[in-house]
């Protein structure tokens, strides 16, 4: 059925950690528009008005407690308590790992809870919850999570994204590097184009020299309809990268 997806289509990347490998049993996010009750004397029915505030909640359930290098425990064992702590860069998708499919990036995310569950007769599992102090930024996958061993760009691979229209208010680009070996550097870049012939640099991510690594970078102004992702490696080795772009 077109437009319908199942559990095989879910992915979840946090700060460059691929947490779907922990065999999560559940992943959910909830966006709530906050309302204030405005019912008053004389009203016969209950009234409410939106306040202009929204709230985003993100939760992962029942992944395996995984202590391998770059596993779930390494990613989640230190919930954020320091007010100066860096925000987490989180990307999730429910429609598969395909160029042009939807993903959601969470701006301003703090991991708030980490719960390890040991039970008689069962494998140990772990839960985590995140407090999102920004918005859920919906966008399109421009580079599905994949391993590369040399420079590439999605336009020449014919997997550029056609968003069908341009947008005027800038964009947020997300990049997650879950594995890197051999290369001494890696620069990922998102380009946009109005005609799919001439491209312009839109977002250039900072040089990556080790994994896990995750970045969120914004750009202002018009974002044209076609999007291409370029990977520029230094040296020889391999790298596993995801990237998505949310039009703001």
């Amino acid at each position: 059925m077109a437009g319908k997806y199942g559990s095989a289509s879910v992915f979840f990347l946090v700060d460059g950690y691929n947490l779907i490998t922990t065999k999560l049993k559940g992943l959910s996010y909830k966006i709530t528009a906050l309302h204030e009750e405005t019912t008053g004397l004389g009203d016969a029915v209950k009234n409410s008005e939106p306040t202009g505030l929204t709230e985003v909640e993100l939760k992962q359930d029942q992944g395996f407690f995984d202590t391998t290098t770059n596993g779930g425990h390494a990613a989640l064992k230190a919930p954020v308590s320091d007010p100066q702590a860096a925000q987490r860069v989180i990307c999730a998708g429910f429609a598969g790992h395909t160029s042009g499919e939807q993903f959601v990036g969470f701006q301003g995310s703090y991991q708030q809870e980490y719960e390890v569950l040991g039970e008689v007769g069962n494998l140990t599992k772990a839960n985590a919850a995140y407090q999102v102090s920004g918005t859920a930024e919906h966008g399109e996958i421009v580079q599905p999570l994949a391993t590369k061993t040399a420079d590439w760009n999605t336009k020449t691979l014919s997997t550029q994204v056609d968003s069908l229209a341009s947008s005027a208010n800038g964009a947020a680009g997300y990049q997650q590097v879950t594995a890197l070996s051999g290369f001494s550097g890696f620069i990922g870049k998102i380009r946009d184009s109005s005609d799919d012939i001439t491209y312009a640099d839109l977002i250039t991510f900072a040089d990556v020299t080790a994994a896990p690594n995750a970045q969120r970078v914004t750009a202002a102004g018009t974002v044209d309809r076609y999007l291409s992702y370029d990977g520029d490696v230094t040296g020889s080795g391999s790298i596993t990268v995801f990237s998505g772009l949310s039009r703001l």
Partner: protein
Amino acid sequence: MNGADYIALRRLSTTDDQTLALVGESCARVPASSLPGLLASGKIELSHADPPVKKRGKG
């Protein structure tokens, strides 16, 4: 439109990421068919490299 009349406000490149113009450079190598779209989205602007008009001397 003539690309030489415009300068790039962003690095412009071919489909395989070969540079056509760096920021501030002339768009002479940019395909003419791409110029209207680039102008509309603010990625290029008209060059203001016209020579200053000489004032006529007295007498």
